[in-house]
């Protein structure tokens, strides 16, 4: 993580770049950068095993905010090349498998075109 912060100075366009979301993240962006994986892993157990809904660290909600919209108005999958979740992970060489199961665009976006 220190590397990520230091790199922009040294390596300009080699650092991950991704579309910005609007609104405010569920935690401080710096906190998210460091700890989003543990937030998500706690949340998945709380939601699935205990049945807690509407919680702060919902993966569904990350996707709702962080999926960018293309020129055609359609949501772009968050794990597509250069997109929010993918760009950093490619850079950091981590490959979470979440999106083999989880939807990569917000609810409704898969079926209805522009929303």
């Amino acid at each position, binding site marked *: 993580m220190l590397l990520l912060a230091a790199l922009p100075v040294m390596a300009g366009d080699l650092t991950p770049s991704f579309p910005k979301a609007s609104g405010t993240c569920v935690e401080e962006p710096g906190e998210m950068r460091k700890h989003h994986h543990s937030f998500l892993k706690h949340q*998945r*157990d*709380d939601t*699935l*095993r*205990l*049945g*807690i*809904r*509407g*919680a702060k660290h919902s993966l*569904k909600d990350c*996707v709702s905010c962080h999926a960018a919209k293309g020129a055609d108005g359609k949501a772009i999958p968050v794990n597509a090349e250069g997109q929010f979740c993918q760009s950093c992970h490619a850079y950091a060489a981590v490959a979470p*498998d979440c999106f*083999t*199961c*989880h*939807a990569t665009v*917000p*609810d409704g976006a*898969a079926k209805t075109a522009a929303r």
Partner: protein
Amino acid sequence: MTADTSRRDVLKAAAGVTLLAPGLTLIAAAPAEAGRAPGMPANASNRWGLLIDTTKCDSGCSACVDACKTEMALPSHGRPLTDAQYIRKVTVKDPKSGYTHSLPVMCQHCAKPPCVDVCPTGASMKRADGIVLVDRHICIGCRYCMMACPYKARSFAHEDQTGQAPHNPRGKGCVEACTLCAHRVDAGGRPACVEACAATGKAAMLFGDLGDPGSEISRRVAKEATTRIRADLGVDPAIRYQGI
């Protein structure tokens, strides 16, 4: 948690009184039931279940099955033997009399689920409110649960998946089954199959809380004859049938 539970019970009771006061029936009041508050876990005082009147169920009707496939975004690969299916129509026949009828069968959300007993990782699990689920985050795809299930209720995803519904993440190598539409139930709704059966089918399915003696399902179960499939196994399913 105790404090919150009792607070919600009070709220529930209060809602019941206000709704009943103007002379509304409980049936009309049922859909207005609010979901569980955000941040609250599933509650052991609930026992979600279904009552299915098979005398109303039409053998030609597949409204529940179709609604489930749409709700859970289950595609067909044209291989009926292995395509994911959370609910199916079964035709039963009395060999002596020839009497035939049709009924929907899904995960029976057993109180003593054999799938949970055999699961080596803890992925097969029962929520506090009795809903039996696969925690696909830790499912290794061994399929012991599929063999243990007396109701043949579970499926296995054999192929890579795309186009999943956000409320039903599913992928290759994991077991899956009816969730009693936990995502809807948690939001105060009822399962998609029940809704479709009421809208375009024969209104043969009733969803409700068997843990609440005042619910319509509990009152009917208390005064009408109902059966459970293979009740002899002692797994105590939450799905009850009439007419079989």
